[in-house]
C-alpha cells in the first residue's frame, strides 16, 4: 500500500459531514495556518513541498502563488478550477463528492495565503448535484466559524461561492474560465497580462485545480519538507489517477509517484489488469490531450527501462517515444480497440470544444475530424494520413490557448505510433468495417515520420 494523503479517510462512514471530518482531524491545518503562520510562511511551505499543479500543466504551485500582484486597495481572488472536462479525467469529481470538506479546508488556507476574501469554485455544469454537496459543506464550515467574518479572530474574512458552468471544455483553460465567471463566452484571453496581474474582473487572480488545493491540507499538516520526501525527483507527494477503459477496476486511485506503470495496470490494488483476460494494446496515460503510447513504449521507455507513474518518467523520450502525466486521466485500450476510431472520437471532441477564436484551431480541428471519419468509414486515401500530419503540425503552437496543441497531439501520436493501422484502414476499406487491426503492430519498430 502506498502513502495516502488525500483519500486516506475516504472510506470513513459519514466523512462528507463536518462532524465526522472534524473528528477525524479535519480543519487542524486551518488552525495551524491561520493561528501560527504568516501568509508568506504558508507560500514558503508550499514552495518547499514541490507541489505541482494537478490540473494538467504541472506548474509549481508555490511559485504561481508568489507571482500574485498586490496593488494597494485592489481585491484579489482565488478561483478553484473544478471544470474537469478532459476526457478520461474524473478525479476532482471524486474529491468533491466524497471529501468536500478537504477541498473547503484547502480553500480556506489558500485564500488566506493569497488574501482572497471572495473565493469561487467554478464547477462544470454537468456535475449538477455536486454544488449542493459543496454548499452544504461551506455552510457547515461557516457555522463552525471556519468561514465568514474575522475567522479565528485573525481579522481575515472569507466566503466561498460555487458557480456552475454551462457545458464547455474550454472553460477549464484558466482565462476562459475567468471570462465565463464574468458571465461571458469562454474565449481564452491573450496572455500577458497573466491572471496573477489581471484576472477575474481585472483583479489579481490565482486559478488552481481542485486536487492542487486539497493537497495544501497535508502540506500544512506535515510541512513542506516532509511532503517533498514522498515521491521522486520533481514528482513530489501523491497524485490522483482516474483509470478507465478496458481494465478490471476502473476508478480513482491515489498513488505515490514511485510505482511503475506495469504495477499500476496489473496490480489488484489498482487497475487489476486488462478486462476479460485480453491483452494491452495502448494507453493514453494523462487525459485525452496527451500522446497515446503503444503497450511496449508505455511499460518501458525507449531505453528499455521500466516506466514509472510520474511526471518525469512518463515524459521520458519526449513526444517521439514518451507521453505526459497530464491530468492523471489514464485511458487503457485492449487488443480489440481501433486506434483510428478512438482518434476520430477525440478529434470530434476537440472540434466540438474549440471556442473558434483562432483559425488554425477552429478550421483545423474540423478538418482533422472529417479526414479521420473518412478513414474510419473506409473512404480514406493514403494521402489523407500525410494531410492529417500536416494539419496537426500547422495547428500546434499557432493558437491563443493550448487547446490547439491538445487537439493536435493525440492525432500526431496516433499516426506516429500506429501509422500501419491507418494504412491498413485505407488499404482494406471493407474489411476494416467489420474487423479490427488488432495487435499485429504490437512488436513493430516505432514509426517516426520525418
Amino acid at each position, binding site marked *: 500500500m502506498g502513502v495516502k494523503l488525500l483519500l486516506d479517510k475516504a472510506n470513513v462512514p459519514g466523512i462528507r459531514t463536518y462532524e465526522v471530518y472534524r473528528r477525524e482531524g479535519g480543519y487542524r491545518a486551518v488552525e495551524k495556518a491561520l493561528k501560527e503562520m504568516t501568509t508568506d510562511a504558508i507560500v514558503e511551505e508550499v514552495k518547499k513541498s514541490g507541489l505541482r499543479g494537478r490540473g494538467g500543466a504541472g506548474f509549481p504551485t508555490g511559485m504561481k502563488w508568489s507571482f500574485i500582484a498586490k496593488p494597494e486597495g485592489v481585491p484579489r481572488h482565488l478561483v478553484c478550477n473544478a471544470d474537469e472536462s478532459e476526457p478520461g479525467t474524473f478525479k476532482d469529481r471524486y474529491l468533491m463528492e466524497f471529501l468536500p470538506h478537504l477541498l473547503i479546508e484547502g480553500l480556506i488556507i489558500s485564500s488566506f495565503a493569497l488574501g482572497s476574501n471572495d473565493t*469561487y469554485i467554478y464547477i462544470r*455544469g454537468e456535475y449538477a448535484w455536486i454544488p449542493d454537496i459543496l454548499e452544504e459543506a461551506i455552510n457547515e464550515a461557516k457555522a463552525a466559524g471556519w468561514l465568514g467574518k474575522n475567522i479565528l479572530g485573525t481579522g481575515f474574512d472569507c466566503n466561498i461561492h460555487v458557480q*456552475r458552468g*454551462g*457545458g464547455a471544455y474550454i472553460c477549464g483553460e484558466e482565462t476562459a474560465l475567468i471570462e465565463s465567471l464574468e458571465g461571458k*463566452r469562454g474565449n481564452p484571453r491573450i496572455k500577458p497580462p497573466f491572471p496573477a496581474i489581471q484576472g477575474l474582473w481585472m483583479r489579481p487572480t490565482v486559478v488552481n485545480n481542485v486536487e492542487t488545493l486539497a493537497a495544501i491540507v497535508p502540506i500544512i499538516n506535515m510541512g513542506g519538507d516532509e511532503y517533498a520526501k514522498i515521491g521522486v525527483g520533481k514528482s513530489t507527494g501523491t497524485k490522483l489517477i482516474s483509470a478507465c477503459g*478496458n481494465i478490471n477496476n*476502473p476508478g480513482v486511485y491515489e498513488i505515490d509517484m514511485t510505482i511503475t506503470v506495469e504495477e499500476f495496470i496489473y496490480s489488484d490494488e489498482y487497475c487489476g489488469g486488462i478486462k476479460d483476460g485480453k491483452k494491452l494494446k495502448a494507453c493514453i496515460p494523462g487525459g485525452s490531450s496527451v500522446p497515446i503510447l503503444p503497450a511496449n513504449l508505455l511499460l518501458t521507455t525507449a531505453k528499455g527501462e521500466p516506466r514509472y507513474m510520474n511526471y518525469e518518467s512518463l515524459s521520458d523520450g519526449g513526444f517521439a517515444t514518451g507521453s505526459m502525466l497530464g491530468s492523471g486521466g489514464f485511458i487503457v485500450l485492449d487488443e480489440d480497440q481501433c486506434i483510428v476510431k478512438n482518434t476520430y*472520437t477525440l478529434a470530434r*471532441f476537440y472540434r466540438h470544444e474549440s471556442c473558434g477564436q483562432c483559425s488554425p484551431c477552429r478550421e483545423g480541428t474540423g478538418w482533422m475530424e472529417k479526414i479521420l471519419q473518412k478513414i474510419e468509414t473506409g473512404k480514406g486515401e493514403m494521402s489523407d494520413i500525410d494531410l492529417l500530419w500536416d494539419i496537426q503540425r500547422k495547428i500546434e503552437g499557432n493558437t491563443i490557448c493550448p487547446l490547439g496543441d491538445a487537439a493536435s497531439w493525440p492525432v500526431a501520436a496516433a499516426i506516429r505510433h500506429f501509422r500501419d493501422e491507418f494504412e491498413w484502414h485505407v488499404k482494406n476499406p471493407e474489411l476494416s468495417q467489420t474487423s479490427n487491426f488488432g495487435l499485429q503492430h504490437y512488436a513493430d519498430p516505432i514509426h517516426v515520420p520525418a
Partner: protein
Amino acid sequence: MATIFNDTQMTEFKRLVARYPEGKQKSALLPALHLAQESFGGWLSTESLDYVASLLQIEPIEVYEVATFYSMYNLKPVGKFVFEVCQTGPCMVSGSDNIIDYIKKTLDIKPGETTKDGLFTLKLVECLGACGYAPMMQVGKIYKEHLTKEKVDSIIADYRAQAANN
C-alpha cells in the same frame, strides 16, 4: 408557460446575484440561465433570454451570445426527459455505441429528436467526467452509469411510470 420567476425562483435568483461584487451582476448569467431553463420547461425561448437580460440589466445580445456558446442550454423545446449519452473515446471503448444504438431503436428516434409523446429526447454529448463508470448518460441532474441494455429498459420504464403518475 409564463416567463416570470415565481417567488422561490426569484429568491434563488437574488442569491445567485449576491455572490458577486456590486456592479458585477453579469457574472450571475450562467447560473441564471440554468435557473431559467429549469423554471421554464427545460429550454430557453427568446422570451426567457430577454427576461434574464432584463433581470440582470444587460443587453439581450449579451445573453444570446452566452446561451449559444454553452452546450447545456437548450434553445429548442425538448422532451420531458433528455437522455444525454456520452460518446467520447473512453466511453466508446467501453461500448457506448451499442447503448446509443439500443436507445435509438427502443425509442425509435435519432440523436437530436424527441419521441412523439414528448417524453424523451436523445442527445449525443462529449465526455461528462464519468469515464470510469461507462457507458453512461446524464438525465436532468443525475448520471446513469454502467449502462446495459437491461438498465436502459428499466430507466425508460421508470420514467414512463413517473410521467403517467403526474
